[in-house]
């Protein structure tokens, strides 16, 4: 198991390094001059040159890349804004804030959003999927299946404003979406995130309903399950003891992908509800062509995805011993 994990971690590190190289070259090697963004209305070649020096982009791309990589590992103290401890992604062109501290500042919201939504969609999605499989062919099954079809075709940018209009502005049942730190006010944290959780999880839950149902039905048709039933074990026992565990294998993989995507920034949800998480930060960095920030968000999201993949692989190995052996 340890060897398996070690292989996975090593592979992820290599991928991350390659990604860093490609992303850096793409962002910093493109013909766009970020200094123009800061040059103001009376921009002149002299003013541009001055900003180039200030930003450190007057150096060659390999030189910039070496400085960037060194900064990630050892930090930097050559910024006019002040020292930048490792991992140093530099300072935002737009706000002059350290990219790493900005990422850390936005992370708790994204984690709150992702984990909360995951809890909801797993509970609802897996629950309804299992019930549908358990009651296969009944009205309950058909209702859940039809409902999940409808909901999975919805979009967050449609459901979000709709939920706001009905649940917040018309009926005043819920608070406006707002992020409060969990440690400061747990109640406000909870009430402020209910609507984003519900909206985000609605779309995911619908997908998980269908996935859990089909996976469970598939498992129920497996030979070992039929054997267990033939040996006289109760349907309930077989369902939860054998079929349930087997049906989780494909679902765990998808959970890992979905969770890591959300942890990298639920862009549409955060933007729809005006929540300043990593997804919103990604949008801001694109809008302002803030290359250090954009690179930081991208690499951070990539690292989260790779980390989640390692965790998923580990969980996968626990659930299915064949994975370890392979």
């Amino acid at each position, binding site marked *: 198991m340890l060897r398996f994990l070690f292989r996975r971690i090593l592979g992820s590190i290599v991928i991350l390094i390659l990604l860093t190289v490609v992303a850096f070259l793409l962002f910093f090697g493109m013909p766009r001059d970020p200094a123009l963004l800061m040059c103001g*209305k009376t921009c002149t070649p002299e003013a541009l040159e001055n900003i180039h020096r200030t930003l450190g982009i007057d150096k060659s791309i390999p030189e910039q890349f070496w400085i960037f990589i060194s900064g990630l590992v050892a930090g930097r103290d050559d910024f*006019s804004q002040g020292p930048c401890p490792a991992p140093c992604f530099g300072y935002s062109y737009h706000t002059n804030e350290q990219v790493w501290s900005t990422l850390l500042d936005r992370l708790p919201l994204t984690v709150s959003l992702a984990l909360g939504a995951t809890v909801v969609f797993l509970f609802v999605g897996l629950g309804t999927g299992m019930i549908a499989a358990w009651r296969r062919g009944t009205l309950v099954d058909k209702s859940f299946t039809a409902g999940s079809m409808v909901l999975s075709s919805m979009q967050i940018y449609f459901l979000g404003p709709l939920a706001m*209009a009905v649940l917040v502005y018309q009926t005043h049942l819920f608070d406006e979406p707002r992020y409060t730190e969990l440690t400061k006010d747990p109640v406000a944290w909870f009430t402020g995130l209910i609507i984003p959780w519900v909206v985000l999880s609605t779309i995911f839950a619908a997908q998980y309903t269908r996935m859990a149902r089909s996976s469970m039905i598939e498992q129920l048709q497996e030979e070992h399950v039929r054997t267990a039933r033939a040996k006289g074990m109760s349907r309930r026992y077989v369902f939860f003891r054998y079929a349930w565990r087997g049906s989780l294998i494909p679902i765990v993989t998808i959970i890992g992908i979905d969770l890591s995507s959300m942890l990298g920034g639920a862009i549409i949800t955060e933007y729809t509800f005006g929540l300043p998480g990593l997804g919103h930060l990604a949008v801001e960095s694109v809008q*302002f062509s803030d290359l250090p920030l954009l690179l930081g968000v991208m690499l951070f999201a990539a690292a989260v995805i790779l980390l989640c993949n390692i965790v998923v692989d580990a969980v996968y190995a626990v659930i299915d011993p064949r994975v370890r052996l392979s």
Partner: protein
Amino acid sequence: MGKGGRHAYAAISLLAAGALVLTGCSEGGSEGTGNDKQDKENAERQQAGIEFGDAKASTGPAEEVAGAKPGGTITVLQRDSFAHLDPGQIYVSDEMALSQLIHRGLTGYKATSDDGKEHEVVGDLATDSGTTTDGGKTWKYTLKDGIKWADGSAITSADIRHTFERLFAPFISNGPTYIQQWMADTPGAEYRSLLKDGPYKGKHLPDTVLETPDDKTIVFKFKSAKPDLPYALAMAGYSIVSEKNDTKEKYDKEPMTAGPYKIQEFKSGKSMTLVKNTNWAADTDPIRRQYVDQFNFQFNKQYEDSTKAILDDSGTNATAVSFSNQVDAGNLSKVLGDASMKSRTISGYQPYVGQMNINLSQKEMQDKTVREAIAYALPVTPFVRAYGGTDAMEVAGGLISPTVSGYDASFDPFGKKKKPAGDPAKAKELLDKAGKSGMKLTFGYINTPEGQQYSTAMAAGLEKAGFDVQRQEIPAETYYDQVSRVKNNFDIFHTAWGADWPSASTVIPPLYDGRQIQDGASNYSHINDSKVNADIDKASTITDPVKAAEAWNAINEYIVKDVVSNIPTAYYKQTQIAGSGLGGFVYDDVIGGVDPRRLFVK
């Protein structure tokens, strides 16, 4: 300032820098009661102009707002977080609005009427708007007694000297550069060589440029007359910085304030809380009030979000407002069509004038008859419609906004106000005369939903006149980068520009001075006309504001009518909304939006 500047236009145009302009429009002015009436009102306002106030006008406290009472908290819903808090770095309208509450300068605009339409430039920290005895080459200011920083320390002339000297430092790159260039007597970025490290390595501006003989006196000395100095000093970008507390780049996040409010907490990209500055003395300030206990800013609120929240009008939304967000285009008609909603709105002009640039570097565009054909053919209606209709845009006749002295409502040489859909018959006639019927016309447009919409319809209008229009999309993020390159292949493209103060001296030279054609500069149409250049030089030296306004307007009319390098499209307008629990909600023509200094909780 460029609408969208050279920054990411994208979904956000916050980088449209500067909003300290005189803007004119009555409340509900966007109701559409007829352009003629509105134009007349505008013209009357401009004739009034903005005068320089004396010591009496500069004495605090500011007149009380009718019905105002102290206390309460106001929620401010903003789309964009504040990127800069250092006065030297402030040049965008939402930061300028915030600046009204936290920063102070030597001069400022004082509203002399309750409707936010009449103003004068008065001494803010200074005892008056400035005195000059040599036509504007030397300006003397004296600081008031009892003015303090938020930490209780006294504001002295050393702080003022420091404020201006640090503007030459390399890290100050976002704010206005007018006064630095005047001090160095040079255009462009060469001004920095006057004090290239700022005051941080022991060097200072010589007394021949800036003199501070004692703790209270400041004397600006320029090589040529600068009659606009009191206006320039009123810009938020020239608000003062504490010498003792200057932390250079870090000052941009934690500035020392002097206005009626100070920053209690700022979480970039998330929220900001302003609380009362107890060291601010009302009797030193003729411009601001301090009614509200606290301002709570929430960022990331799109126009639609803030509009819906304020329309909700319950809980904290009843005392909510936005300094910069407009009523979104989708809700605008509904809001203005409902009396109860409309009563909570204010409307007015923004500082920008839209214009279609004809690239004079392109060979085919050097034929004036072709340019006239474009001018007649170009439909403006699609542009107005794309941005929300006549409630958000007004068809323009000239390049000088109704918010700027010298605006002439009757000037409309191509009849755009009467025929906003264009005059294809006349244009076709001209194009045939030039023997260019069917000629290719490359139209560079910004790739936003609005850009897509108006460019398609504009192209159709131009094709009716006989042009073969080739639309070329330009990504929003690089739009201004691309169109400001001298070597670009676009024949026509649209830009917008706004004045920094109510004089066309901040419009005509940067946009139409032929000596300023270079990559990244704002002379987008590459106009280099000897008469325009000479007239700019002449107008820049006129010290009488009325005569100067006439001179600038004459250049505007010559460019539009005789050079035909820039076709005016629209004057930008906006409507803002507040919760029913707010009082003192007034559209200030100078700020170009709600005046945050008058707000109170009912």
